[in-house]
């Protein structure tokens, strides 16, 4: 599985962000590198929500962070508005940053404990205030109301708010600069179920109100499905399967996608629970398996999987799989 190839890239005028062959490696020790992300290609159309799922350590966050250049990129391109973010540096990079904002997993740690909430939210405006001329108290109040924080509490500091509220503040901060793309890295995994729904609803609401394009990362398949239009399933730094949300859940083709769907406590009806029994350990990203990266744990493994890396291929409509032996599913419906 876990393959490469630019097949999933769509040729549409409304593509906002286009990631091509993104490869990220982190040096560990003297001579080794973690192959965190290896040749992923995908794109996001304007107004779309792209979900990214996968197990811990598969590179979801790395993809997100690479797009906004919190990582150094080894190779590949991140095209946004004709600009390749992968090669931008210094002031040029800084200038595009307001367009792509991020929401982090840990709502508490993503707020400066020493600063007041109002200052946190207006941070972007005060950085860009001169250039954009949008710096105003009204804007802050509006944002606070929009995300459900009483503007009265603007003078408080983060530790006086609950996790859910902190996440709202984080969202307000990201929205202050009128971004085009909002990248959410597991924004709800640290929250309780009851609060999780509030945040997910809020994101949806903000998306339509401010015309955002969303990238949503989570390891919770139900959550990802709920918010996404299109989903990428990742495994060990590679993409396995890309497709629209409903398509992917209804007709999962990749053995790994199916294993995931079969493993969740209330398994999807489209897969067999037995498919969830994937064996073995997650291989180390320092020495990922040759060929298909999933072959060490795949029930359908054959020699070709060990030798050759599968390429992304279209399996109908907006659905791509990187597998030598994609599972056949009935084209129900």
């Amino acid at each position, binding site marked *: 599985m876990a393959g490469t190839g630019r097949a999933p890239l769509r040729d549409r005028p409304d593509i906002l962000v286009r990631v091509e062959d993104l490869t990220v490696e982190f040096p560990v020790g003297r001579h080794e590198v973690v192959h965190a992300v290896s040749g992923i290609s995908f794109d996001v159309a304007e107004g779309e929500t792209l979900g990214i799922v996968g197990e811990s350590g598969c590179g979801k966050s790395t993809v997100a962070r690479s797009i906004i250049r919190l990582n150094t990129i080894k190779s590949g391109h991140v095209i946004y508005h004709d600009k390749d973010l992968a090669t931008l540096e210094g002031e040029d990079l800084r200038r595009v940053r307001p367009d792509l904002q991020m929401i982090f997993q840990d709502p508490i740690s993503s707020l400066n404990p020493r600063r007041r909430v109002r200052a946190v939210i207006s941070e972007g405006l005060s950085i860009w205030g001169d250039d954009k001329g949008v710096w105003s108290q009204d804007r802050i109040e509006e944002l606070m109301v929009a995300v459900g924080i009483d503007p009265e509490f603007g003078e408080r500091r983060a530790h006086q708010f609950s996790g859910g509220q902190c996440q709202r503040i984080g969202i307000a901060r990201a929205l202050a600069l009128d971004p085009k793309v909002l990248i959410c890295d597991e924004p709800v995994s640290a929250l309780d179920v*009851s609060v*999780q*729904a509030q945040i997910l609803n809020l994101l949806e609401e903000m998306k339509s109100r401010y015309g955002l394009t969303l990238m949503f990362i989570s390891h919770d*398949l139900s959550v990802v499905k709920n*918010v996404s239009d299109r989903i990428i399933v990742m495994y060990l730094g590679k993409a396995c399967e890309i497709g629209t*949300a409903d398509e992917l859940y209804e007709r999962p083709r990749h053995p790994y996608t199916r294993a995931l769907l079969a493993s969740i406590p209330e398994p999807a009806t489209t897969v067999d629970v037995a498919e969830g*029994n994937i064996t073995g350990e997650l291989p180390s990203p320092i020495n990922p398996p040759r060929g298909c990266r999933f072959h060490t744990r795949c029930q359908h493994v054959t020699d070709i999987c060990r030798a050759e890396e599968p390429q992304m291929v279209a399996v109908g409509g907006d659905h791509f799989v990187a597998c030598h032996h994609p599972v056949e599913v009935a084209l129900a419906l």
Partner: protein
Amino acid sequence: MADTQLSVTDLQVRFPTDRGVVEALNGVSFDLEKGQMLGIVGESGSGKSVTAKTLMNLLPRTAEIDGEVIFEGEDVRAVARERRKHFWGVKMTMVFQDPMTSLNPVKRCGEQIAETLRYHLGHGRKMALRGATDLLGQVGVPEPAKRVHQYPHELSGGLRQRVVIAMALACEPSLLIADEPTTAVDVTVQKHILDLLDRLRREREMSMILITHDLGVARGRCDDVAVMYAGRIVERSATETLFNESRHPYTDALLRSIPHIDQPSHTRLDPIPGRPPEMINPPVRCAYAPRCRHAREDCLTSIPTMGGVTGVHEFACHHPANTDRGDAALAANVAVGVTPAGLHLTAGAGSE
């Protein structure tokens, strides 16, 4: 009920702190039958872990504990001094949430398992180590002979949790309490662990309390489920009953607030407003009232007691959901647009 193994009655736990007294448990009662798997679900801070720790005698000395815990006919809180040493860890054990931190980072896995054997069963060093290897095999750790010599950090999360489980099972306990044993692992691993626990429970006829905040896990694995909120069990019944005929508005709301894999994407979620109450000096009222659509005046003045059918489906609510009384309360609230607790409900809404 003949086989009641554990009986908890009106358990109360308070922690005096600098900020005031944290009333962590306010009268928790439940029974557990032999071989049964009880799920306890609830939001963070609802008192799940405190319940488990009370049973395991793990609470800090500062905790004030009231109530009765009878385990196999014996009052746990009055275990004779000489038997104390080999009570916990032998008959009743526990598995914690984070497999990384549940293992002592500076000791080899084998040693840690063997320690239990040596401590409680008086095994010699060699024999205990052999026992540890056996146990690792039983919990499905590959190459157990090699693993006993490894340190926890050299193992993956899934393996670590298995080591923890092996450690807990060393003395063949008759009750295992698992406090969120799978929150820190991936879904695929979670499945393995839960399968393993299931298998072990059956093989050893062990009773289990599975604490989780994941309703799905509880639904898929438990015989009975208890829902906790603010230090109380607010609803408890057989699993299917609970999920299909939830009576407490909190259980009801909880079920509606989580996304399901079978729903189409962009299905709007129905969140529970607000957040759990502070546990310090809580006012006398239904703790859920401020977030509850069904709340009426009586919810703000008195704490509902456990009702429903004792031992079958119990819930603590003045206006249970999906009952006439509950519907009436909701309708009345919607009519004025706000609950007596100040929660705003916009018009047009109502029962689905």
